[in-house]
């Protein structure tokens, strides 16, 4: 949808807020640009609708080079939301939202229907708000109108420049949630600038971390949190954030990768010995290819050991099992339904990769507090 190819912005005095930037925003993707102030994120955003012209490289929107388009036409097809909202104080809410459709020459009936639809969409009752003026609305309500106005002509692409940055924390969170809900239905392509990492993680499908006009890393929130490729990225994200967001922590981080296993043809006695050695009361039963077959528990073995020849005869189906793509949050949620307090983790081929136990969960998640302490002490 939006492609940056080696794009730079150089001012006459030689200052370069953006340095040979290349990336692509896919259709329907929510892409967040983040970085400290002065990193070039807003410049990058404003180059997309030509509010700031780029000086080299090419930017294409929907396959068309924006430098070859009339900026006015380009902008009418791109939604734009800014932090200061910028509603027109002398226009009613209705007139504010109707602006782009009116510029595009929609007929009056169609505009009216669209305005009503949009006000409903952003949670404002048209009967109450359509005829009001911006000054009569709270900041949160005004930004809802700002979002509605950006979507008025149903653009494929929406640019948002810290749209929720000036709102109080409660309103901000509310609007983020509502926007996420809208986005799930509408699947617009969104480029969103923020300096708030929590917001970025919450909203973004992918996050681009920028510093000094360069793109340091462009990845999914999960990847960014677990594999920051750059010291700055790690520092900017903050180490603790990961533990506050177990849904972003891959399950591999909270599992033991050397689970105690046993082959199904082994004897019960051998299994019990193995459990003692490994100080565990469950064994994961696997075949020669390390594929998970089931779970053997110490309790069963003690009762039935005399009646059976091999552990394979008294396997419990392993339930639940998590794939490697699962997160620590999945493990936290599902450990409660696990009969033996363990969740085996398997890879794409069904092979055993590790096991999550209550102990492994606690020791990893508790690590957060240890690190906190260390940081305070240092």
């Amino acid at each position, binding site marked *: 949808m939006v492609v940056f190819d080696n794009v730079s912005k150089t001012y006459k005095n030689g200052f370069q807020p953006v340095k040979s930037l290349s990336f692509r925003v896919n259709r329907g993707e929510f892409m967040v640009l983040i970085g400290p102030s002065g990193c070039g994120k807003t410049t990058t955003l404003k180059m997309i*609708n030509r*509010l700031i012209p780029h000086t080299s490289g090419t930017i294409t929107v929907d396959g068309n080079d924006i430098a070859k388009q009339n*900026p*006015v*036409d*380009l*902008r*009418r*097809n791109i939604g*734009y939301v*800014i*932090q*200061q*909202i*910028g*509603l*027109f*104080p*002398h*226009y*009613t809410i209705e007139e504010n939202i109707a*602006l*782009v459709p009116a*510029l595009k020459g929609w007929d009056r009936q169609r505009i009216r229907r669209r305005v009503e639809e949009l006000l409903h969409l952003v949670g404002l009752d048209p009967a109450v708000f359509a005829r009001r*003026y*911006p*000054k*009569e609305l709270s900041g949160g309500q005004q930004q809802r109108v*700002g979002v509605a*106005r*950006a979507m008025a002509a149903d653009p494929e692409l929406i*640019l948002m420049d810290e749209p929720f940055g000036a709102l109080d924390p409660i309103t901000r969170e509310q609007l983020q949630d509502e926007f996420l809900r809208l986005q799930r239905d509408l699947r617009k392509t969104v480029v969103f600038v923020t300096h708030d990492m929590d917001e970025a993680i919450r909203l973004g499908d992918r996050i681009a971390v920028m510093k000094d006009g360069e793109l340091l890393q462009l990845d999914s929130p999960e990847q960014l949190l677990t594999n920051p490729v750059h010291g700055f990225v790690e520092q900017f994200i903050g180490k603790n954030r990961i533990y506050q967001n177990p849904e972003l922590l891959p399950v591999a981080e909270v599992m033991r990768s050397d689970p105690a296993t046993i082959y199904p043809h082994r004897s019960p006695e051998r299994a019990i010995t193995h459990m003692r050695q490994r100080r565990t009361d469950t064994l994961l039963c696997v075949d020669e290819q390390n594929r998970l077959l089931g779970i053997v528990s110490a309790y069963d073995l003690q009762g039935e050991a005399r009646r059976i020849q091999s552990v394979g005869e008294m396997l419990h189906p392993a339930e639940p099992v998590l794939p490697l793509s699962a997160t620590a949050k999945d493990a936290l949620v599902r450990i409660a339904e696990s009969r033996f307090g363990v969740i085996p983790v398997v890879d794409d081929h069904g092979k055993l990769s590790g096991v999550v136990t209550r102990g492994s969960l606690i020791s990893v998640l508790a690590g957060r507090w240890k690190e906190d302490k260390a940081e305070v002490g240092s």
Partner: protein
Amino acid sequence: MNRGSLWEQIVQQLLMRSSELGLAIIQHIKLVAISMGIAVVIGVTLGIAVSRIRKLEGPVLGTASTLHTIPSLALLGFMIPFFGIGELPSIIALFLYSLLPIIRNTFTGIVNVDKSVIEAASGMGMTDMQILFRIQLPLAFSVIMAGIRTSAVINVGTATLAAFIGAGGLGDFIFLGISRSMDALVLIGAVPAALLALVIDFLLGRLERTVTPKGLKI
């Protein structure tokens, strides 16, 4: 020579010169209206030009300020070698004298429109002209009107001096009164001039309130 009390004199002079007074008022209004009309058109245009081409700020505002520092009587006199005497030089002088507040207020009104509103407007694909006429001018309207009102009040006062270069108007009475040491005549010219200034300011104020967009009055 006993001319009676001031009040008696006023009554006497009014009776004697009522038709003359009516004509003088009309002439005065004419001078003000024409010079102000041109000043509003040119002043607002220049104000807009300066707000868009910032390089013009120094020369245009500088020239208008300089004109404003010339004493009004001198400016009127200055017109004579170029335009002779009568209405034309007076209107030109009054026009020049009225420009500064209008240019300055138009300029400040426009550049002080909330930047975020302009950014939103151009980000949504409004052309420069649409931004000017639909956003900047309506939002700057009350500031521009304040400039016009200031100009108009000054203009009414200055127009009394136009009598010096033969343009007529209420100034005729004042100068006649001064030269004959007749306070009554001075007042017959000065009081209507002052009232005229008040009335014009009042009317422009009403106009401003009527035209100001509703959303700005809340």
